[in-house]
């Protein structure tokens, strides 16, 4: 249900060329919640995360937080480039996640 709602939201956005499919969103969720992949909930609270950490900001209304998808990608890819003090791992630069996986995480996070 949530996934379907998300597709509508994405389709309404003028910038979104392609809507995220439920499969992409599900893949993103798996990456976000798997300790050896994104492990997002180790540091970030988001709805549905089980016993999440509180080191990073709460991920709620994510589309409003980071409306620019390119910026969002850059944050996950290498946040240290933007903020040298961050402790967020450089998931793209250090090859923890592939570009496809980062995009799937974004698709998932945009449903939060």
């Amino acid at each position, binding site marked *: 249900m949530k996934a379907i709602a998300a597709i509508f939201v994405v389709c309404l956005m003028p910038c979104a060329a392609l809507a995220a499919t439920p499969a992409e969103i599900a893949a993103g969720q798996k990456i976000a919640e*798997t*300790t050896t992949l994104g492990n997002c909930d*180790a540091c970030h609270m988001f709805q549905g995360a*089980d*016993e999440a950490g509180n080191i990073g900001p709460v991920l709620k209304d994510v589309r409003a937080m980071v409306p620019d998808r390119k910026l969002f990608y850059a944050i996950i890819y290498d946040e240290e480039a933007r903020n040298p003090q961050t402790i967020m791992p450089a998931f793209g630069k250090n090859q923890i996640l592939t570009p496809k996986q980062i995009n799937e995480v974004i698709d998932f996070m945009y449903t939060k």
Partner: protein
Amino acid sequence: MTEIEGLILSAPSRRTVLAAVAAGTAAGLMRPALSFAAAAAPRASSYPAKAFIQHSQDATLQAMFGTSSVTASADVKMDAPDIAENGAVVPVSFDANAPKVTAAAILALDNPFVMACAYKIPEGTSPAIASRIKLGKTTKVVSVVQSGGKLMSASKQVKVTLGGCG
């Protein structure tokens, strides 16, 4: 960050134990036991093996007590953490306010085998026992006490989480 009032130094009991171990003098501490014939080995034949290989509360209670009929009761108090620090060492204790308690058991419903431990409690022994058990994952933990032949229980959901770094 919700720091709580600091706990300075360690609990006195820890220090007592440490001092006793270090001195090697306190009663019964650190005696290698194999050669010690002070108490005979318990009879393994009394072990309710069947109760320890069941996968449901009903089957476990049936095998242990001959009945699966159990009533949740406020007279059984149980202490277990909301979130286990580590699933390998979870402190669990119970304390029953009931007459003629003859036996007790601690169950972890989502463990591979439901029964964690059981006790035969003779007259004169308090129906209050603390121990440490393993939980494979988040599960309901149940303390069951047999009082006058009837089973009464208390239960609590204990969360077991993954470590932070994976």
